[in-house]
């Protein structure tokens, strides 16, 4: 049986761990608020971009000179999977759930005889995929954002790389994997197709008057200018959603850890008190029986 000193040490160490998890939970809560604000601030841009692009795309997509970012290459042999994960762990199933859907997609595509290329953003996703898909990983970007969160420049850099790869004909279809933030306890791992670009059908029937836009320069030029920007915007949106999801997942994971540590402390304190009482009783019996023997 563990001695009293061992028990005391064990309780002290669990208490120290509990303090750490508690602090991490509070830090995550503060960061979550900031990440959520950033995600909300970015929403108007993405929404407007999508509505304008949707409008133009619906009028032009049938044409023969429609940009390839919109129509694709006409094949779907090579797939690029953009896997967006966090730089750090200790956030529950956040990283592993994103990696899981990406892995399932990769295996399914490879089963169909397609070529798969993987673009990892974030150290955790790379660590998890490295062993299984070493040959498929073509690009790794780490986001070292100790403070302030992701910026649009980060997304721009990733989008530029993807754009250059697409222009060089290295893949036909690009899909990004990230975690959509729903609430602190619920983050939904999501796959979104980036290239060819997809838009929700514009509600043209409802607002018929809106269809008569004048374009300067032409529609095709605007589309050619906006589609690469849209790529960056979509990546940026996913990164922000991911940021909020990560903090949310970490917050609930650390909340659980703090609660578990509390339970453990309670149980061990009970054992400690019982052991102490048993020792006192034992000593008393020894003294009394010693006195009786005299």
């Amino acid at each position, binding site marked *: 049986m563990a001695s009293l000193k061992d028990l005391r040490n064990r309780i002290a160490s669990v208490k120290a761990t509990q303090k750490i998890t508690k602090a991490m939970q509070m830090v995550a809560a503060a960061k979550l608020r900031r990440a959520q604000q950033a995600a909300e*601030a970015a929403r*108007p841009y*993405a929404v407007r971009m999508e509505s304008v692009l949707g409008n133009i795309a619906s009028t032009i997509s049938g044409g023969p000179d429609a940009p390839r970012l919109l129509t694709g290459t006409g094949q779907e042999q090579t797939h690029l999977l953009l896997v967006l994960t966090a730089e750090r762990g200790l956030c529950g199933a956040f990283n592993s759930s994103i990696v899981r859907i990406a892995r399932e997609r990769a295996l399914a595509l490879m089963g169909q005889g397609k070529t798969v290329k993987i673009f990892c953003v974030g150290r955790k996703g790379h660590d998890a995929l490295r062993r299984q898909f070493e040959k498929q990983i073509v690009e790794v970007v780490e986001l070292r954002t100790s403070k302030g969160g992701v910026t*649009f420049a980060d997304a721009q850099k990733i989008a530029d790389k993807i754009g250059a790869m697409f222009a060089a004909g290295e893949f036909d279809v690009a899909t990004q994997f990230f975690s959509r933030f729903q609430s602190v306890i619920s983050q939904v791992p999501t796959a979104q197709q980036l290239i060819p670009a997809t838009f929700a059908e514009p509600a043209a029937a409802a607002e018929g008057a809106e269809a008569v836009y*004048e*374009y300067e*320069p032409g529609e095709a030029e*605007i589309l050619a200018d906006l589609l690469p920007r849209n790529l*960056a915007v979509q990546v940026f949106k996913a990164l922000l959603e991911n940021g909020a999801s990560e903090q949310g997942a970490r917050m609930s994971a650390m909340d659980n850890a703090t609660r578990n540590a509390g339970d453990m402390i309670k149980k061990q304190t009970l054992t400690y008190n019982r052991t102490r009482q048993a020792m006192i009783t034992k000593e008393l019996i020894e003294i009394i029986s010693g006195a009786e023997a005299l």
Partner: protein
Amino acid sequence: MATFPFELVSPERLVYSGAVTEVIVPGAEGEFGILAGHAPFVSTLKPGVLTIKGDGAARKLFVRGGFAEANPQGLTVLAETAIPLAELPAEKLAQMIRNAQEDVEDAGDEATRASRQQFLEQLKSAAAAIEADSRSPH
């Protein structure tokens, strides 16, 4: 003068939102002014100075990359960069021009070189306009 709702949005935040009387936008094919009741119109932006005229003094911002959309509900400008001129240090602009210059030199084929060269020229003329603006009294 009639006012109309105007929004200037960057990817990171909503930079400006409110009722204004006139906005001058640096369009890809030349600057244009938008007043209340403009016909539906979409144009891409070149790097330059966007001027907002509302109540009081005109506000000027450096904008780069994006597009403007005017419709019966008002005007929306989406810009990748939107910085008030007062907060834009001259050396940052000079840095942008240097980067653009390097991009021109690094360009692989003729088409990218031409488009990057054009971007560099636009950036330079925007810098000249800002320079002129800062010397003239407001």
